[in-house]
């Protein structure tokens, strides 16, 4: 069992967390002007990196979304922070 650090609750079992999305995506605004390609990119396309990555996770126990930096190959976690806060 791996433990992930919730910035609000501290280290908790991985089963309490849910992966939401890759970090750094911006929603097409205004919504009507993006076009299908831009929306497809926002909704579906992924960098899916092998190695270090920045992801949005939710801690289902406290309900908070946050940013986590980890490595998809080694599963090592570099850190986590509340959204909108520089990590």
């Amino acid at each position: 069992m791996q433990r992930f650090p919730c910035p609000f609750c501290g280290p908790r079992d991985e089963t309490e967390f849910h992966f939401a999305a890759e970090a750094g995506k911006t929603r097409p605004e205004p919504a009507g002007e993006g076009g299908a390609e831009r929306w497809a990119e926002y909704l579906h396309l992924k960098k899916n990196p092998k190695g270090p990555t920045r992801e949005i996770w939710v801690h289902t126990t406290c309900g908070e979304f946050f940013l986590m930096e980890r490595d998809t190959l080694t599963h090592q976690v570099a850190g986590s922070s509340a959204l909108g806060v520089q990590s």
Partner: protein
Amino acid sequence: MTRRYSAFSLFREGLRGHTGWQPAWRSPDPKPAYDAVIIGGGGHGLATAYYLAKNHGMRNVAVIEKGWLGGGNTGRNTTTIRSNYFYPESVALYDFALKLYEGLGRELNYNIMFSQRGVVTVAHSEAEMEIAARIVNAMQINGTDAELLGPDAVFDKAPLLNRGPKARYPVFGGVWQGRAGGARHDAVAWGYARAADGFGVDIIQNCEVTGFIVENGRCAGVETSRGSIRAGAVGLAVAGHSGVLAEKAGFALPIQSYSLQAMVSEPVKPCLDTVVLYLGTGTYLFQSDKGEIVVGGGLDRVPSYAQRGNPPMQRTVLSGMLEMFPSFGQLKMLRQWAGNVDVVPDSSPIIGPSPLPGLFLNCGWGTGGFKSITAGGWLMAHLIATGSHHEISRPFDLDRFATGRLVDEAAGSGIAH
């Protein structure tokens, strides 16, 4: 020198001390250029090369594999082959695949140990039985075999299933597909490799593709750990590594890589002669020809390239097995492993041209692409040779993510693999 496999050649070789067997394929050095290069020596890549040669007469072809043949998901999968999907597009694809499997051992002159022992998907409530009936109806309308079973018929198929009054997931009935079953995973890869090699295809192992040669906005070949190789067309069939290679080609895909794990027990006497999946536990199992109980379940929910599998999902899968077959609590588990699967939002594959002209995609099979190696190879070969879709692959083009015409099988058939 023995090339064709048969009972007679086995007997003859037995008489002369097995000295006449030849390697099943050559190990040539890469040539500087090919008409087509396929990246990835899993089932889909090897089948693509075979059908390029067989169906389209393209023999100046290479398959480039960074490790060994079938060392990716093909050699790690639990080998269930079935076509019990919901949407007509999916049934057209997976039933085509199943039909090709039905003749494959003979066609390749290779024993792939194809065994149509049937798959039963078990439902646990009246409400789930209604969903089961809906899936059976959809399958029958789509022209494939399916039968709705009551509880007695399910216990007939798998007598060791949990009948206890305290069962957490009681057996109300299930969906039966009798033509479904399994095959030996390595044999499918090796059989295609040997047959493709027989047509003159170069199979190059221990050679990693590290980049693409792009000229005038077109893919003109690949850079590899053994030098540059030029190609008229390039096919990408690297499953969990699709995103890594897409990035080198300058685009992104709607794919997230996850670990999917499986386990086998020590071998025991025959006790289960079908594949059983519980809707309630998400665990599925069958008994291999060697006697091992093979157990699998859902994805590890952490994006990963680690190919090992985390303990929480292992516990979920094994507790599911104990609920389904209480007597299997006596089994000792021998091995656990994981593959690196390419998961797409609608749980359907991506077959079609990529954003880089000259580079074609066969990926996104996720947790369920062993059953479709035959069709995946056939359709990708069609695409590479003709430059356009076969009618079966058209709905699975990358463009569906912009048009919104998703083929959402996770919602449709509700089955993960």
